[in-house]
């Protein structure tokens, strides 16, 4: 359960037996494919999820950067992002474990919708905790969860955002741990979550590695993707970690600045790997954004999905070992990357994914001849944010939005 000094199981005692039970199930079903669990998982990922997702040569980016740029198209996965790989794996695992209820927390709503989808598909009751403020900000995602039959329970304490929702879900789990599985949304939390979620997301790099060899005739020189909690990151890196010739870049959200405001407890970024320090958060030891006392900072990013003050412990360890290079791109660079891919390739990426594209723009000369970038999700969910943010800033290459100016917003 450790990745060098990171990882571990820092959870209330009441949850420890459940975590041990999960650890056992992880080893049997996921690692040893007991009862054909992994076979069923992969079949459902194919039929329900739409795997394999394509690897696409980005013709116009390749020309722009005078390199071979390949895009891994996780945006085409059912639900519009890589999130389903994990949600489907965990809900199926819960079924194998004999659990009869699923809970999850969600911030922007992407993990909640993926979990609700997986639960509907597998006929499992599902309750998703979500801050009241997030519910009001992310109405389409709330509606999608409700459509898939999930209960969406508003969390009204505190600021009504992700952190309060996590506490509330932990609370539910602590209370109902015997029949309930908590589907954590990223490679975070206590062991075995970071390893298990990575193994459910590993399919991204299994495919991408093989596809790159087929299309480019060799392995990529560099592999890039965004990193918030790090589930798409670890999913994309997992199979490349042992390929010494391949450089791995985790692109974090630089937000508006890498400076922090200690007094207010606010980091105007989510660059945990780049600027965070070792600590304990949400069940594991990892890099976190914290003040000098160890209080967790409020992180910020134009991309809600990267907006998290922690990061997966394995990713933190890989950065410490210099196997993964942690870099970051700010809000403006991400918005420009969003517009660039939309216009040049006809793919509207998630704002999360746009961070990786922003990094390629500025550093392509250091990235070698064959560059693999993960489009971890699609950007339909971000239209309103992009409309507002683009209006307020001077973003390179953004289309003018005169068509809208009569009424503003959607």
């Amino acid at each position, binding site marked *: 359960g450790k990745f060098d000094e990171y990882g571990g199981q820092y*959870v209330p005692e009441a949850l420890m037996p459940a975590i041990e039970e999960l650890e056992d199930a992880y080893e049997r079903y996921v690692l040893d494919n007991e009862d054909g669990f992994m076979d069923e998982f992969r079949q459902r990922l194919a039929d329900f999820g739409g795997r394999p997702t394509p690897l696409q040569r980005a013709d116009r980016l390749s020309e722009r950067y005078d390199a071979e740029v390949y895009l891994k198209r996780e945006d085409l996965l059912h639900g519009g992002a890589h999130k389903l790989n994990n949600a489907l794996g965990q809900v199926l695992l819960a079924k194998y474990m004999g659990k009869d209820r699923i809970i999850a927390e969600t911030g922007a709503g992407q993990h909640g919708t993926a979990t609700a989808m997986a639960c509907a598909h597998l006929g499992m009751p599902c309750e998703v905790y979500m801050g009241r403020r997030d519910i009001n900000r992310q109405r389409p995602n709330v509606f999608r969860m409700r459509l898939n039959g999930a209960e969406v329970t508003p969390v009204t304490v505190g600021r009504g955002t992700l952190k309060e929702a996590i506490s509330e879900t932990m609370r539910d789990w602590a209370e109902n741990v015997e029949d309930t599985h908590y589907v954590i949304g990223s490679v975070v939390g206590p062991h075995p979550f970071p390893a298990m979620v990575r193994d459910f997301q590993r399919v991204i790099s299994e495919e991408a590695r093989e596809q790159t060899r087929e299309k480019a005739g060799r392995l990529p020189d560099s592999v890039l993707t965004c990193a918030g909690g790090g589930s798409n990151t670890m999913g994309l890196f997992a199979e490349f970690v042992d390929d010494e010739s391949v450089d791995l870049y985790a692109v974090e959200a630089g937000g508006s600045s890498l400076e922090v405001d200690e007094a207010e407890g606010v980091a105007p970024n989510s660059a945990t790997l780049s600027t965070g320090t070792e600590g304990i958060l949400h069940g594991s030891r990892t890099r976190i954004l914290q003040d000098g006392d160890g209080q967790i900072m409020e992180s910020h990013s134009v991309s809600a999905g990267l907006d998290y003050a922690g990061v997966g412990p394995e990713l933190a360890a890989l950065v410490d070992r210099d196997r993964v290079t942690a870099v970051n791109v700010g809000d403006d660079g991400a918005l420009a990357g969003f517009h660039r891919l939309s216009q040049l390739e006809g793919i509207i990426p998630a704002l999360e994914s746009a961070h990786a594209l922003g990094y390629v723009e500025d550093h392509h000369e250091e990235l070698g001849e064959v560059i693999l970038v993960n489009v971890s999700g699609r950007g339909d969910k971000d239209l309103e944010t992009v409309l507002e943010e683009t209006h307020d800033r001077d973003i390179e290459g953004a289309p003018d939005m005169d068509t809208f100016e009569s009424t503003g917003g959607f």
Partner: protein
Amino acid sequence: MSRIAEAFADGPAFVPYLAAGDPDYESSLAYVEALERGGADVIELGLPFSEPIAEGPTIQSAIVRALEAGMTPTRYFEFVEDLAVDVPLVCMTYYNLIYQFGEGGGPDDFVRRAAEAGIDGFVVPDLPAEEAEPLREACDEHGCELVFIVAPTTRGERLERIMSQVSGYVYVQARLGTTGARTDLSDRAAESLERVAEWDVPKAVGFGISTGEHAQRVVEAGADGVIVGSALVDIVAQGVERGDPAVTVASRLEGKARELKAGALRGASGNERPHPERT
């Protein structure tokens, strides 16, 4: 004999909890002192952490209030020093605050400073026995106790591991879930007590105790102490909501403490006490 052991020595101990600095430094001092006047034998004094994953909404809100009023680890130790109470104090907080204090990278600085300020022990809800070695060592070094929580789901090897490390008292969690006042008190309290009966350490039961009646029943079930948090924090919250003066709230807390202490004492005296050792 440690101060905590002494507190449990004669009759059932009443162990109330409040978050330090809720809703502000001065009021909070008065509230904690009121608990002692109401009969507290040990006080669990929360040091607020920004991500209190083990707390119910009541205590979570108290923590938010205390943080907003400026509570920090450094202020917390000053708070402990400013407190005019004579009972042992147990610091309840999350591991990251302990880990980061001072030089950081370990619990030693925190425990040293806490001991200096007058803290007698620790209870850390997100630190299971498996990860507790460094804190255990620091406590030994600085003469503090390390309280562990035993949950209704804790059995077998895990139970052994915890009970072999616990000192001061064992915090017996009466039911699943997080902290919070409940009107129903699970039968699991008795079951849980039975599971830890063989170890020679005081057993304090917490989670969901909100009335003297509850306290009585828990002690009747074999507890050496009752831990009460949310029911007291509720009184603080109500005071904030209504804008009551601190002195009024303090007196209510004192009254509630008396009720709970009296319940615990009733549980110990009247009925036959099914001491597991004796069955």
